[in-house]
């Protein structure tokens, strides 16, 4: 009887039905949720410990947590881990700043000028089809195996999404706002700083955030292939020498960095777009 037309049987409702579920004791549920958020990692760690103790796997494959901790402390105190960290983060921020600069300039230019859009946008769309990871071998051949290639890769991974966000941010500004500015004969520079920049900022910042996550992934991948330092290189070295403890520490650190970057950026985002949200409210 499921012909898609009249679907739900209609019966007279004899008693009032609560439209929405009564507000459950939400506070309690929330508390339970927080507890669970702590609980599941604990279960994971305990499970891991038990697995490493069970003797089913050799300790080299499922490394016991205390060994991981010891390795971490050793590598942290002998300065190797901090070196890898500064190496990776330096590259990330260097390439990111270059890429974001190019992206913002290019995207804003395309957004402001129809001519620039007509000249640049199609080529830009072609570039966007080429995943950065797939460009690693070609870039290695062009730029060699030094620092340049990593900076270029991170800059490329950053520039394209940022340019797109900047472009969309500027294009999304209501025409009337610009018209108002023009009617009041506001100088072009003031129009730029007081209308275009604040109005396109929320979209741009969002693009900057996704670009940061993406460039971190590209950098880790690039370091796995070519590097003499960095978290990726540390993991690759651990792989080649069968040091699973190093690999696992690398994985955790990579995740923590990704997480911290994202959270930090979200905080920055809230700070920067405070004004525009207040206007909406």
């Amino acid at each position, binding site marked *: 009887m499921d012909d898609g037309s009249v679907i739900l049987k209609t019966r007279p409702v004899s008693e009032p039905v609560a439209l929405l579920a009564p507000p459950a004791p939400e506070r309690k549920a929330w508390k339970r949720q927080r507890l669970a958020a702590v609980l599941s990692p604990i279960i994971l760690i305990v499970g891991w410990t038990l697995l490493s103790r069970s003797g089913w796997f050799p300790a080299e494959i499922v490394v016991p947590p205390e060994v991981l901790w010891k390795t971490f402390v050793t590598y942290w105190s002998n300065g190797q881990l901090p070196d890898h960290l500064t190496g990776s983060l330096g590259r990330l921020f260097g390439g990111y700043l270059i890429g974001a600069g190019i992206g913002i300039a290019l995207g804003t230019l395309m957004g402001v000028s129809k001519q620039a859009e007509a000249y640049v946008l199609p080529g830009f769309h072609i570039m966007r089809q080429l995943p950065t*990871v797939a460009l690693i*071998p070609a870039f290695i*051949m062009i730029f060699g195996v030094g620092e340049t290639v990593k900076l270029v890769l991170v800059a490329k991974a950053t520039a394209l999404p940022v340019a797109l966000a900047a472009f969309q941010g500027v294009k999304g500004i209501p025409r009337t706002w610009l018209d108002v500015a023009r009617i009041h004969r506001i100088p072009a520079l003031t129009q730029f700083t007081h209308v275009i920049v604040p109005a396109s900022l929320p979209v741009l910042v969002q693009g900057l955030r996704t670009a940061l996550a993406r460039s971190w992934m590209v950098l880790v991948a690039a370091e796995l292939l070519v590097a003499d330092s960095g978290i990726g290189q540390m993991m690759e070295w651990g792989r080649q020498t069968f040091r699973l403890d190093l690999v696992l520490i690398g994985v955790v650190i990579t995740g923590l960095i990704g997480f911290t970057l994202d959270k930090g950026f979200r905080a920055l985002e809230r700070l920067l777009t405070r004004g525009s949200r207040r206007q909406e409210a």
Partner: protein
Amino acid sequence: MNTAVLTDIRPTTGDRITKFALGLRGFVIPVLALVAWQLASQQGAVQAYVFVPLDGVFKSLIEHFADGEIPINWLASLGRTASGFAIGGLLGVSLGALMATFRPVDVLVNPIYQAVRQVPLLGYIPLISLWFGNGEPSKLLIISLAAFYPTVLNTYEGLKHIDARHVAVGRIFLASRWQTFRHIVLPGALPSVFTGLMQAVAFTWLSSVGSELFFNPGPGLGNMMANGQAAFRMEVVLLAVIIIGVTGYVTNLIVSKIADRVLRWRNVR
């Protein structure tokens, strides 16, 4: 003076030609880049190694199509992507649905899912390599994860964000559990599930190539690139890049067309 109030606004032939000519502006920069590349290749033997002449690239395209290198690697990558997408997508939708439906699952699994997802996918490669080796299963694992992450998230979000008023209407009409699912929950969540699957398509293709770059054995476009790089044959690497780009573009196009068709009943904002 007000004789011609109504003007014919249909584009004339002249307008069309102008539009076409203006559209050509987009080709200026790509063509300049190609010319620069070609010029660089003619600077000397060393430069010709890196900046392979364009006719060389074209020649090697024909050559490697004929000798089967391109079709074999291409199909291998496509097949791998498809299986990874199927495995990861299926598991992802299931887990997302489970998490959205059963609180205990949500509470226990969600934090772990969020934690695991923080590590960039390709960062798992050394770990997977040591645990599962460098063969086909490792590649499939990476690709499946690439499909898994976005489908879990979007299925979960889609089911969680069903309009409460729609469910309330269902309750007023005393809809059974199945009816509620079939006519309220499913259509409500489907757009989001589809978004997840679309992201998965793009992401699986990328990670397929990425995993092939790192796990050497077996055919695949990533492999073709790795071998090309090792042998310093830029034309092979470039061909692979171009094929990867074109394939990604075409699949995204197909998927978005399918999504448009499947979801055409939805009110587009």
